[in-house]
């Protein structure tokens, strides 16, 4: 930007590129050299071509391979039995001993390019099309060589010398071992043979000391667990043997763990380390960025940081490195480093480099695009849970992008603001959005946050549509669906529906938005996308090489067989870019959530299942974890804890390093639930407290977790029969939810309050709460919750006296279809019990006449409650059963029921806390 640095050239010629040129000459010998290279088969010839293509395109690393690495790759591709390529390559390389040799070499190279006029094609002759990938590569090499000054040629020559020396010294020893132990010890040799051993070791040691120090200095700042820190450092230094590199690459489990021995490898100017082409490096960085986004926390912070630092050292003008460093520190919650790197990146690049979603500006101004910096900074603050700063920054971004008429950025910024507003709880707009929100004054300040959000969403959607930002449109639709899910279109005036039809959420709208967002995939389904870097393709091919090719070595004779094996890669992974898949995946997740809210358990489960099976590869690991969480919750509710915990174990293993919090929260939830059911109140309280601690202390952040924690707190208190405390907690929770407009949660809290009053024996007080909860459920279409509220209402009526039993019964029977169809074990059991109780308390009902009406539901309930280990209710069930049996005069059954009752009461009173292996894990 400042123009002091000379604009980066495109391409520089390196020893590795000379090697590729030599191989190219083998692949396409020029006419003058009348002795074509003897290929074993046509397939082998093609294989070489593919290999060369992969070499020039792949972006799996930042450095060009050294000669020995290249040789080992060659051997892998063509098998050890065909050493001619290698021999040819090494002899040609070592023959380059003076600048003149280089000149001659490149003049020769020029001849293998087929000119446009050379239409006389001989048989068997391969002519390199100058416009093909390889032809372009060759032309660029020749051009780069021709541009070199004499000093440059000298440097190239010395570099080739070093490049050969390192590899060839190991070659002799390699020849003897390669049959038994192909491609494993390659890297160990050259370093030791080349330099003085003692010095090498000494250097290595000091290097390690320094690295260790540096690492500890830097990290200790942020991590408070010294042990973890040492593990980290250990982690980097451990793989001293080069085998690990290969195993890493093959290993499916950790495809993103970088072979750390790159990082520590000292690079000296003479050691023949060269960066790949600009294009390849950009591709590499792009891939790493995607991987970071997908499952960030499985990246080792330090290892990747070391690679980036090395890259920065080698290419100080490649500013994108800073962006990757920002992403890396963002993923590892290092606020200061993230902030620092973000600012540095945008200071250098002025937002004009490498951000893909910004198309080259129509009226490009020369003043940089710093508004993008603001957008990123805002999102960073959001990520770190600083909503206030995020909103400030994003507001500034809106202003600046309006000033500079960067519509794309504006659309994205608006979407980010929507996201922010919907995620965090903002109670009053005046403080934040008030005067500073000047660009949006047309809305008027008097609107509530929800209304503002709605208007913003509409605006953002419209903008994205007019700019044809397809992905943004899709994600805006998703945001809209989310909004529709939990918000009534018109402001809620007060409790209770006044014009009930109007004041409801609109599930059809949600479905419509969800469907619209999935339209995105059809856009990409038809035309093959240009989004995937074709480097990825080559990278995949090269990586395939690392897989054991046992059959290829054994069945060398029939070349075709082995070739098929290696051509697997021809199956293109997918033409749909990962980000699109991710979006569509999240639409399924949202569907699952929506059905969960609306109360359709099977649909929710199916959507979560679809997500878990189809989109986990493309999605970020935290989203995948969410899908698993949903499935496990479902299991817990419908199948009891045993199965849920078994599934949890699997999930924990799968998301070992990733998104710890989500799985952790789930675990705490399950533990709490079970503790409550079993009557381990102390444990329940402890778990509940742990849950509360996980939430951020900033107001408005982590609202979901906060409500959950205090809801559970209230329930624990209720279970401990501390009614007034429970009511107080629930009440304050209600106030909070009301303040932050969490209407769906309000319904739950109201129901809980009704429950508290029911338990405390104040049924009359409970009734209004139950009714209020019902009306909330109606407005938000929360059918399952409504059924459960109805059940509570019925219970309340019932406790008012036996003369209300009929009314209660009819209420229960009205809710039963919903409860039995979609409710979990606990809810069903409660409904059964309540039903039985209604019958029993009805004076006109005689047990002896139709005992099945009572006994059937009771026995059903007892089975379900035993699965849940819900001792309290189970005891009640058995008690009721015993009474019924007593009335029927079936003494044996009565005794049995009484025994069971006793057993459950005992379990309730003397909670066994020996078998809590899971809690110990905490």
């Amino acid at each position: 930007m400042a123009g002091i640095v000379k604009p980066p050239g495109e391409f520089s010629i390196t020893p590795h590129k000379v090697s590729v040129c030599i191989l190219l000459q083998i692949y396409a010998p020029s006419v003058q050299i009348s002795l074509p290279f003897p290929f074993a088969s046509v397939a082998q010839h093609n294989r070489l071509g593919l290999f060369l293509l992969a070499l020039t395109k792949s972006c799996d690393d930042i450095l060009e391979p050294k000669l020995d690495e290249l040789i080992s790759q060659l051997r892998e591709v063509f098998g050890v039995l065909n050493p001619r390529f290698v021999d040819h390559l090494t002899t040609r390389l070592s023959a380059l001993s003076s600048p003149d040799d280089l000149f001659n070499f490149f003049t020769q190279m020029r001849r293998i390019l087929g000119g446009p006029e050379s239409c006389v094609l001989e048989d068997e002759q391969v002519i390199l099309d100058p416009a093909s990938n390889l032809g372009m590569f060759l032309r660029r090499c020749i051009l780069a060589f021709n541009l070199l000054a004499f000093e440059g040629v000298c440097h190239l020559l010395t570099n080739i010398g070093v490049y050969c020396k390192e590899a060839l010294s190991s070659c002799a020893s390699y020849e003897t071992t390669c049959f038994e132990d192909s491609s494993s010890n390659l890297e160990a040799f050259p370093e030791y043979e080349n330099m003085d051993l003692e010095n090498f070791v000494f250097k290595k040691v000091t290097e390690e000391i320094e690295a260790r120090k540096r690492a500890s200095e830097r990290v200790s700042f942020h991590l408070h667990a010294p042990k973890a820190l040492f593990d980290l450092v250990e982690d980097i230094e451990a793989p001293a043997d080069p085998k690990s590199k290969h195993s890493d690459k093959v290993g499916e489990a950790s495809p993103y763990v970088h072979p750390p021995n790159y990082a520590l490898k000292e690079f000296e100017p003479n050691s023949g380390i060269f960066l790949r082409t600009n294009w390849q490096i950009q591709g590499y960085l792009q891939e790493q960025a995607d991987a970071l986004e997908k499952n960030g926390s499985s990246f080792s912070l330090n290892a990747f940081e070391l690679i980036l630092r090395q890259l920065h050292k080698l290419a100080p003008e490649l500013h994108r490195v800073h962006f990757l460093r920002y992403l890396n520190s963002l993923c590892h919650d290092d606020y200061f480093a993230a902030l620092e790197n973000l600012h540095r990146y945008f200071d250098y690049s002025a937002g004009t480099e490498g951000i893909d979603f910004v198309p080259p500006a129509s009226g490009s101004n020369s003043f940089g695009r710093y508004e993008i910096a603001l957008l990123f900074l805002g999102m960073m603050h959001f990520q770190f849970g600083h909503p206030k700063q995020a909103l400030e920054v994003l507001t500034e971004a809106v202003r600046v992008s309006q000033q500079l008429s960067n519509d794309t950025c504006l659309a994205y910024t608006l979407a980010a603001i929507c996201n922010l507003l919907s995620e965090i709880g903002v109670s009053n707009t005046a403080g934040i959005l008030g005067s500073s929100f000047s660009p949006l004054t047309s809305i008027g300040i008097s609107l509530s946050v929800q209304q503002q959000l709605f208007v913003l969403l509409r605006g953002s959607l419209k903008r994205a549509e007019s700019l044809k930002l397809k992905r943004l449109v899709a994600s805006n639709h998703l945001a809209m669906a989310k909004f529709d899910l939990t918000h009534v279109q018109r402001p809620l005036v007060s409790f209770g529906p006044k014009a009930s039809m109007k004041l409801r959420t609109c599930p059809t709208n949600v479905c419509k938005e969800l469907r619209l967002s999935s339209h995105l995939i059809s856009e990409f389904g038809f035309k093959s996308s240009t989004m995937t870097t074709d480097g990825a393709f080559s990278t995949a091919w090269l990586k395939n090489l690392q897989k054991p090719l046992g059959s290829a070595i054994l069945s060398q004779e029939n070349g075709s067989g082995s070739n098929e094996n290696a051509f697997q890669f021809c199956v293109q992974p997918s033409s749909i870019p990962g980000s699109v898949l991710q979006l569509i995946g999240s639409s399924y997740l949202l569907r699952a959530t929506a059905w969960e809210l609306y109360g359709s358990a099977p649909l929710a489960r199916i959507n979560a299942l679809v997500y878990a099976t189809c989109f986990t590869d493309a999605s970020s690991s935290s989203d995948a974890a969410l899908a698993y969480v949903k499935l496990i919750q479902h299991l817990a509710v419908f199948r009891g804890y045993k199965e849920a915990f078994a599934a949890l174990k699997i999930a924990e293993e799968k998301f070992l390093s990733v998104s710890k919090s989500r799985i952790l929260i789930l675990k705490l939830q399950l533990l709490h639930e079970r503790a409550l059911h079993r009557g381990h109140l102390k444990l329940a309280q402890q778990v509940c407290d742990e849950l509360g601690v996980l939430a951020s202390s900033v107001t408005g952040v982590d609202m979901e977790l906060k409500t959950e924690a205090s809801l559970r707190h209230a329930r624990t208190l209720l279970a401990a029969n501390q009614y007034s405390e429970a009511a107080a907690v629930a009440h304050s929770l209600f106030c909070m939810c009301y303040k932050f407009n969490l209407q769906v949660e309000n319904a739950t809290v109201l129901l809980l309050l009704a429950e508290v009053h029911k338990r405390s024996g104040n049924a009359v007080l409970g009734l209004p709460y139950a009714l209020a909860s019902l009306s909330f459920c109606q407005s938000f279409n929360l059918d399952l919750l409504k059924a459960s509220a109805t059940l509570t209402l019925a219970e309340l009526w019932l406790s008012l006296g036996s003369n209300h039993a009929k009314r209660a019964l009819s209420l229960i029977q009205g809710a039963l279809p919903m409860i039995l169809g979609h409710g979990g074990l606990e809810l069903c059991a409660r409904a059964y019990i309540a039903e039985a109780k209604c019958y029993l308390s009805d004076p006109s009902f005689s047990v002896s006449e139709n005992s099945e009406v009572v006994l059937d539901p009771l026995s059903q309930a007892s089975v379900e409650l035993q699965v849940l280990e819900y001792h309290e209710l189970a005891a009640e069930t058995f008690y009721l059963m015993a009474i019924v049996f007593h009335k029927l005069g079936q003494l044996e059954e009565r005794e049995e029921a009484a025994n069971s009752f006793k057993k459950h009461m005992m379990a309730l009173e003397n909670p066994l806390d020996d078998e809590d292996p899971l809690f110990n894990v905490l």
Partner: protein
Amino acid sequence: MNSKESCRSELRIAIRQLSDRCLYTASKWAAEQLIGIEQDPANFTPSNTRFQWGSSSIRRRFRTNEITSTPIAGVSYVSTPVMEEDDAVDGDFYLLAKSYFDCREYRRAAHVLRDQTGKKSVFLRCYALYLAGEKRKEEEVIELEGPLGKSDSVNRELVSLERELSTLRKNGSIDPFGLYLYGLVLKEKGSENVARTVLVESVNSYPWNWNAWSELQSLCTTIDTLNSLNLNNHWMKDFFLASAYQEIRMHSESLAKYEYLQGTFGYSNYIQAQIAKAQYSLREFQQVETIFEELLRNDPYRVEDMDMYSNVLYANECSSALSYLAHRVFMTDKYRPESCCIIGNYYSLKGQHEKSVMYFRRALKLNKNYLSAWTLMGHEYIEMKNTPAAVDAYRRAIDINQCDYRAWYGLGQAYEMMGMPFYALHYFRKSVFLQPNDSRLWISMAHCYETDQLRMLEEAIKCYRRAANCNDREAIALHQLAKLHYELGRPEEAAFYYKKDLERMEAEEREGPNMVEALLYLATYYKTQKRFEEAEVYCTRLLDFTGPEKETAKSLLRGMRTTQSGFPSMDVEHFSP
């Protein structure tokens, strides 16, 4: 402080030893200090001096051993025995090598010394190799500029030098100069901790090598590392500490050290220049100017540190003096980064920013890590309204030195110019963190908070308060504080600050619109407070000014008189019937 005489003799020997080893900068430095030692007035007669010059050089030859054996008469200083030369007579090869070295034929010099084993020869060989490597490296930096600005050229001799020197050190057959070179090599290789230890070893056994001290100083970037060094108490340590304090922005400590050193080295140009530097950082421009004028009188062909002088002249807008300086420096040595920087400053002062940028660029070509040139170039780009370029230049300055508050400040300004005040705050925060006693930084930050887009007035008030506390020269802070408090509806605070501002203006005998504003506000304020006497005082003072305020003051006075007289008249009316 030990006697001047002993310092003098130590330095004399050291100069010889240093120049024998071709450590020219260090010997230059030592010689400057030698001349800088104040003569005792008793022996200070021309003849005496001449005699002294002669005799000392003669005496030295005979008394070398004597000096080393007698402990130096210092109270707190550890005596460091002057190093004995191992080979009394320089070998012929050594002489040849040294001549080659002096002609800058380093490799040749090293080659001549290939089989010599004397410590001096070994050092010279290694040093020559090192310099040859450095020279080649510089050339390669230009030759090898890669596609992404890769300039990873490294001194290729480092590996072999490190190997050799580490073995020598292990054997114990290394002299302090060798240790210095070893430290240099280690530092270049990035192993800073070891380098620090080695350099400390070197300066403890031979303290007169200023090169070693300055390398050590570049490795001490925090006060903690500085305090952790285990250094012998030698008077050279004071020089080191003074310079190190300056580098870590403990300017007053550094100034104190230099003033203490001036007791012995009263005529040292070096110390004077360093004092000027410290004063410059403390923004005492007047003093800096005087110092430099004197310096130039004594040493007219000096180029070092003159860029700072030009900065001062720039700040004082003395364009003719600046042009004179530029001309002189240009004639002395055109291709010094300092010279280019001075010329750049001159053009900047003249408002010719393109030319100025050109010269700053030249300075940067000559020394890519020339910090102030990057920053100044950033300022120029700001003037030219080329903010992206300015941002880039500032950022490069920061990457060279994280602690350059000017560059952070410049970045903040650039972003503020682009209408991104919130984003700019990050940079202002950085700069005030580094320089918390600079009112200008606080004021800019407050200004940022005050912008229409942010309107975070409480924060702005906090910043202005900090600015007012650190000697705000332009007296912006008080005025702004008063205004902001007024805007926020806190009349008492506003009145308090207006009054303070007024007092200040009175003390500095300044008048202007601010004065009028303050007077007017105070008059109305006291009037509403019903403290009419004070209000009247301010009103009458306002009458001295011309303009609409005068009329307002008149009407205020009139109003007050009527109310004052109104009350009794009311009373009269009340009682009359």
